């Protein structure tokens, strides 16, 4: 049943130009970054004489592309997640889902998975694009894999937050703005509290938890952080929709 809700979401993303435009624009941005990074690699490495200054091509290009990707997702995810519930609320289509034999949790999780499935297309494409480096060099696939996993977990977190804000309002634009502000604040936490490793606020930062993935390290604490982050906001969304049913 969750699958059916997810399929419905994917279908409506691709039924309008929105989905295709976002996919192509983002891939264009990532592709350009990739080409620039490869060029830069040769320029930088020809200047680096001592072996200690040299880094692998995977790390150099990968960090550049995944760095951009994590930043762009900050804008792209709110744009995609904004419609999920607010649009249905506005066009009064929620009763269609509410009166079908599916629970609220299934509806919310289905919508979430639909969005994550769409975003994972991007993650896959980025991975595939970077893998083409293997034609000329011997690249570190482990590094690509951890980065992809990190990016996927991060956009899943973004999506869950986006769905929650989408369930609060009838206006998709308001949902997008709220999501963006919240995500931006979570990113910025690292700027302000990053210096002090004991600060709790600092460890709430999304950037900090992506950092270890970005350097090729899979830390279970970070995986748990992203999962908890997503579960928290999905639960809040279910609660919000349940309040609709109870309060009317």
């Amino acid at each position: 049943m969750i699958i059916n809700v997810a399929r419905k979401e994917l279908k409506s993303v691709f039924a309008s130009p929105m989905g295709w435009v976002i996919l192509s624009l983002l891939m264009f941005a990532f592709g350009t970054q990739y080409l620039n990074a490869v060029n830069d690699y040769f320029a930088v490495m020809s200047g680096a004489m001592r072996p200690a200054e040299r880094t692998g091509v995977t790390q150099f290009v990968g960090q550049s592309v995944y760095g951009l990707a994590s930043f762009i997702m900050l804008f792209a995810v709110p744009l995609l997640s904004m419609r999920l519930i607010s649009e249905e609320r506005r066009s009064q289509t929620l009763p269609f889902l509410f009166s079908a034999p599916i629970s609220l949790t299934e509806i919310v999780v289905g919508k979430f998975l639909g969005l994550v499935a769409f975003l994972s297309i991007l993650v896959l494409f980025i991975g595939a694009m970077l893998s083409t480096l293997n034609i000329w060099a011997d690249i570190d696939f482990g590094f690509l894999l951890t980065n992809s996993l990190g990016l996927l977990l991060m956009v899943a977190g973004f999506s869950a937050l986006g769905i929650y804000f989408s369930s609060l309002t009838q206006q998709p634009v308001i949902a997008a703005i709220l999501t963006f502000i919240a995500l931006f604040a979570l990113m910025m936490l690292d700027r302000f509290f990053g210096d002090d490793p004991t600060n709790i606020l600092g460890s709430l930062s999304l950037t900090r938890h992506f950092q270890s993935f970005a350097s090729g390290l899979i830390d279970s604490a970070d995986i748990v952080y992203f999962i908890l982050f997503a579960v928290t906001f999905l639960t809040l969304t279910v609660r919000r929709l349940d309040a609709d049913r109870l309060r009317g």
Partner: protein
Amino acid sequence: MNNFTVEAIELTRLYGGREAVSNVNFTLSKGEVLGFLGPNGAGKSTTMKMLTGNLAPSHGSVKICGIDMIENPKEAKALIGYLPEMRPLYKELTVDEYLTMAARLHRVSAKHIKKAVENAKERCGLTHMSKRLIENLSNGYQQRVGIAQAIIHSPMVVILDEPTVGLDPIQIRDIRTLIREVGTDHSVIISTHILPEVEMVCDQVQIIDKGKLVFNGSIDVLKRQRIGNKLLIGLRNPPAIEEILRISGVSEAESLANGLIRVRYAENAEPAEAIVQAAVQQGWGLHQIAPDQTSLEDVFMQLTYQEQIAA
């Protein structure tokens, strides 16, 4: 095990202390069509939302084929097809895509989806619109799509909130036939403002006013109330009222402003013939005699008005 398809037990819904629906009780059996009547804001839609699990009742419960809506919402919802007042259509999809999705969400098995979609389209006259975007359909066709999604999984109970709004007369007739057809093996609940419609399609009628059920019974009761034991006679040389009262069976007579005389008679009495005879013999100049039918509107007004006086 009774064979009620819908049971509403002491259904009450509060909105901030105000009772939108209060203490509504009714049952519906298989093969019955129930008409829900009421003025605007009476609580028709709220009741329907509660029956379909879109709104939680403040008190009371709903059972669909014996399954409690609050305890087992998924099982209960699987037995219901619902068309809300605002059509829940995804306008960016085509008719086929939308109905396929509806079938899937309502647990129609993968093998039967295609057949279910075809069947629903045929019943609602949508076959030639399959590939059109719902957004580009006219209001009436959108309404048909809405009805199609409510019957696609051939549910035990079909609940339609004002199904004939925005349709042309031919389509209204088709939809009424469809409702009757669905009503033969399933149960149907419709709400409407159009009173003759109720008379045409419903077996059971409920009139709801200010959240309270003011009438609940079979359509025949309403019809009887409507026809009543009254005759309307037009006389060119009307005699004194007492003369008419002398005719056997006549219990009451009054002259109306438009020159006609309304005669009430006792149950089972048939004074029409006697009146005609008397009129001919005494030269009253009879030019009109007909049963005095109160319109359904009047019955409706009476029922909702009585409630106001009592309150």
